């Protein structure tokens, strides 16, 4: 089984409860096909680099999972059928080398179990999202 990393971008018109519902559906889809979810990151609302469907914003969610070789293709199909999903990408997970902090480290939810506890924090992340990146920048300087 390979480990994959999948990100999907929801339409900004979707409300928070529905975001969680969509995420849950995707999770169930993966686990229902013998996949094992290893990490979930809610990036929340983020500015898009270009307009999609006349929108300038999207709700980003990352799922990391282990699964069989056909799972990414099935997931892809699943994404396409969902009209709320504006963009999606599934790639083979490449672990960053030791010591390198992942991009959205602080607000990351490591396990599925931890996800509900953090749900309240997620909406605020629209503004909070750039913060981890900014701290990255300072380290560079």
């Amino acid at each position, binding site marked *: 089984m390979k480990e994959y990393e999948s990100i999907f971008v929801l339409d900004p018109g979707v409300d928070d409860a529905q975001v969680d519902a969509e995420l849950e559906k995707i999770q169930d889809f993966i686990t229902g096909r013998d996949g094992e979810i290893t990490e979930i990151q809610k990036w929340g609302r983020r500015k898009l*680099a*270009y*307009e999609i469907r006349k929108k300038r914003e999207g709700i980003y969610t990352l799922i990391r999972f282990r699964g069989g070789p056909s799972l990414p293709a099935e997931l892809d199909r699943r994404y396409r059928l969902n009209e709320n999903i504006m963009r999606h990408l599934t790639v083979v997970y490449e672990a*960053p080398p030791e010591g390198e902090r*992942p*991009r959205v480290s602080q607000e990351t939810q490591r396990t599925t179990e931890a996800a509900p506890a953090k749900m309240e924090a997620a909406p605020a992340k629209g503004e909070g999202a750039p913060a981890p990146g900014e701290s990255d920048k300072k380290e560079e300087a």
Partner: protein
Amino acid sequence: MARGRKAPRVAKKKYCKLCFEKVTFIDYKDERKLQRFLTDHGKIVPRRVSGSCARHQAQVTRAIKRARILALLPYTSDQIR
């Protein structure tokens, strides 16, 4: 023709900045770090300009293309048009 030319400009030797920084992993999710490999118009800076080595250029290019799919990075700048 070459005879009449002015003194050639001495170019500073280019080097791969990523090799210099010993970067081994380029994350497509880290659009801030990728930004420096884009021109102001959002194009990928070619190796002949940036001086990147083949390996790093390939990694950067792949990361940028992935980031573009997710609208983390632009395909082109909005200002022009």
